[in-house]
């Protein structure tokens, strides 16, 4: 059982964007607050804060989750990827390239969440032999809201990355 170090504080070790970290956190801390307020990575957005909009999406062991509904202590031993870890800082990730090329970015508030969800889908479908249909891609994006684009361009970008054609 995890030992409590201080009342209400717990030590966790995890990897964030490829970098190993050990932190002492409040036991009831939410992952989104850890990422934004404690670590200072503000690319992950706070939208609805109730798992509806997907702006806070991050990858945990390559799987997309809503960080607003995820207890921070459960990243113990896991790999967390945020939007800041998706590219090397010089060259953009193909998901980001595709969103720009297809015009899938307008105000940009949903974009980091969209990128993470598409990235999660890309990894998932790379593992299996199944090529997803457009409907399946849309279903994969149902947890991400965008109030600007009307989704068509975002779906096109996702298709481009996942199917590997334009």
């Amino acid at each position: 059982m995890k030992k409590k170090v201080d009342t209400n504080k717990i030590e966790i070790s995890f990897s964030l964007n490829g970098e190993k970290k050990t932190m002492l956190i409040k036991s009831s801390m939410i992952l989104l607050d850890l990422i934004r307020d404690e670590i200072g990575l503000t690319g992950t957005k706070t939208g609805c804060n109730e798992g509806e909009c997907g702006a806070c999406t991050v990858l945990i062991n390559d799987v997309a989750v809503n960080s607003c509904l995820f207890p921070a202590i459960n990243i113990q031993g896991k790999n967390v990827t945020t939007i800041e870890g998706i590219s090397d800082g010089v060259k953009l990730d193909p998901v980001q390239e595709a969103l720009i090329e297809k015009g899938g970015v307008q105000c940009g508030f949903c974009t980091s969440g969209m990128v993470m969800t598409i990235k999660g889908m890309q990894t998932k479908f790379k593992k299996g032999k199944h090529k997803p249909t457009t409907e399946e891609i849309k279903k994969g994006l149902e947890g991400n809201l965008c109030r600007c684009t009307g989704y068509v361009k975002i779906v096109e970008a996702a298709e481009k990355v996942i199917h590997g054609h334009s």
Partner: protein
Amino acid sequence: MNFDITTPTTKTELLKAIKSTKNFRFGAGYTDLLMEFKKNPPKDLTVINLAQLNDKHFSSITKTKTQIRIGAMVTASEIISDKFIHDKFPVLHHAANNLASTQIRNVATIGGNLCTASPSGDVACALMALNATCEILSTTNKIRKVNTKDFFIGVRKTVLKKNEILQSITIPLNQKGKIHSGFIKIGTRLSMECSVISLAYHFIFDNKQKIISAGIGIGSSAPTIRFTQTACDYVNGKKLAEIDRDKFAKEILTYASPISDIRGSAWYRKEVLYNISKNIFGKL
């Protein structure tokens, strides 16, 4: 929001935590629990965190000749990607696949869906149609079995006692035949929706086209999800041509006592339930 948390990693630690903690809630996928805490911050509460529990009874899907066992910590996404469930229990596959969104499905657990005991629980409704049984572990390390039909006793209330935890669910695999199985969810939109009405059905036909097994669960239509026993009895042993579909749908309706709320009126819910019930067999 403030709460204490204890994270057992083995079954022994888990049972000890249940025994020694006074005021606690279980945390599995947290998609419902944290929402609840955000609305009503808990006071003097300990969360028994199940997410790091390393016990295959809780976390795996196993099959034998007579049944399939699904651990309470298995996520909706794991159910969706299980080929056996997809082929043998389409109703469960559909229900899991219609739950909320990708991000939620990746963490939400089957045990959480049951123990939350929402009248609109999708996965729970499908499990009831499949005649699934809950395997409940107590702090004395004994297992008590309760059929999903008897698991719910009210809105957000189950038969679970203070010293018990849902460990796994079993679904019987005792009958062979042609399967007609699915999950119908009526909502006000297609994604991220809490259903206005839902219906889970699972029928098995023998080689003479006679129904040899029938299971129908309805959701969002009563304080709990309900198993429509008399409707199942009515179609059991019959061929499709022998079923009066109006009578069948009305039999299902006898189990519905819906409320009017923001999603739909009681009248509307009943109308929809009647219509989808009548059409369960579609063009078969």
